[in-house]
């Protein structure tokens, strides 16, 4: 009986996830689809909590439910007012895709059933946990991200930087939002400082508890998104000639500092990114701080949908209507 009690919530949650996922991808109305996707992110955050992954629950709450939704909602503005619906695939091809998906589902379910019914073998995770004392932090996920597998995280920051460079290269930012009314303005006045505080808290706590650069960066970016939504076009990002430089330095700070530290420890006769154990706590915090700022700047720019006005001195896309043929 008690078994059923503890099982039912998980069953319901799983059913709700599949139901919402289904509704999200099968809706033909994009606005509805995006609203459902935001709800899906909220549920996913609970699922991470249930699977004892509070680091992921934090990241999902900030990224999945918050920023992805805001990004998609902003992109809805790009759709032409009454865009012609592109033609779908022919019927036989749709049936083929359905068949492929169904057979893949069966194959995957069988593999998972076979492998997961057996007791878990010794995994790399045990090695990671037993070396935790020497990593400089006590949150195992942070240790994996910034010590054992620091290469991965460095390259991930490169991916983020590349993506945002793509965004600013592809066009100018979207027009801003209407000026906030009194209610939204009062919301912004307490929400933005709290988001910034929360980002600082998550960055600091990440060494010993769930939190870290990704969660902090996303929360900080949410502060900028909130400012932009309330009609403040600069959205807290630095402006002007000097500001442009500051923004570029911030964007590349995550990758840059990571590399500098990695090369720096080589100077002491160790391998690339092999921190001296006594220093690793401090070095990890330093890298995480830079990564937080870089991720926040990247996500804030991504929300704008392109490069801000004055990003380059002579912007070729400045007035698209006067472009030469």
């Amino acid at each position: 009986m008690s078994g059923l009690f503890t099982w039912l919530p998980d069953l319901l949650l799983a059913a709700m996830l599949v139901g919402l996922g289904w509704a999200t991808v099968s809706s033909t109305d994009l606005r509805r689809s995006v609203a459902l996707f935001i709800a899906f992110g909220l549920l996913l955050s609970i699922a991470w909590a249930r699977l004892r992954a509070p680091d992921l629950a934090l990241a999902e709450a900030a990224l999945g439910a918050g920023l992805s939704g805001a990004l998609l909602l902003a992109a809805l503005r790009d759709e032409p007012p009454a865009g012609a619906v592109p033609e779908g695939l022919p019927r036989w091809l749709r049936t083929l895709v359905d068949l492929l998906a169904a057979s893949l589902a069966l194959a995957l379910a069988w593999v998972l059933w076979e492998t997961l019914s057996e007791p878990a073998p010794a995994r790399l995770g045990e090695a990671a946990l037993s070396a935790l004392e020497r990593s400089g932090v006590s949150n195992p996920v942070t240790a994996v991200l910034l010590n054992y597998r620091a290469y991965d995280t460095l390259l991930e920051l490169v991916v983020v930087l590349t993506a945002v460079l793509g965004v600013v290269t592809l066009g100018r930012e979207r027009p801003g939002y209407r000026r906030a009314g009194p209610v939204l303005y009062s919301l912004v006045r307490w929400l933005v400082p709290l988001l910034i505080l929360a980002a600082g808290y998550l960055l600091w706590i990440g060494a010993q508890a769930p939190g870290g650069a990704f969660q902090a960066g996303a929360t900080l970016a949410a502060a900028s998104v909130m400012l932009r939504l309330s009609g403040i076009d600069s959205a807290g990002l630095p402006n002007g000639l000097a500001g442009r430089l500051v923004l570029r330095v911030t964007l590349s700070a995550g990758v840059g500092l990571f590399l500098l530290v990695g090369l720096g420890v080589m100077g002491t006769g160790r391998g690339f990114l092999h921190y001296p154990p006594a220093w690793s706590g401090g070095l990890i915090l330093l890298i995480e701080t830079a990564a937080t700022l870089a991720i926040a700047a990247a996500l804030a720019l991504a929300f704008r949908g392109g490069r801000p006005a004055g990003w380059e001195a002579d912007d070729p896309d400045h007035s698209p209507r006067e472009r030469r043929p």
Partner: protein
Amino acid sequence: MSLTLLYALTGTALFLLGLRATLLHAGLLARVVALNVSGAGVFLILVAIAYREAGQPVDPIPQALVLTGLVVAVSATALALALHRRLIKEQAHE
């Protein structure tokens, strides 16, 4: 049936629902949303495998992998949306 299996199967279902919709949808934004659902399914499988019953520590490596994946997914989504925006603009000029 364990909690791991329940959530891994849920992840499988989401992965395939998303994959199918990515292939079938004609609209680009709808495809981006579907791809995100599909990615969430993969993440769910990975984290389900990392799960351990109370008392044992969970495996931190898949969790770190998924954390990286979440951020990469958002970045890729942002790039896809920028490409979509550029495409709309080019089509308007034709």
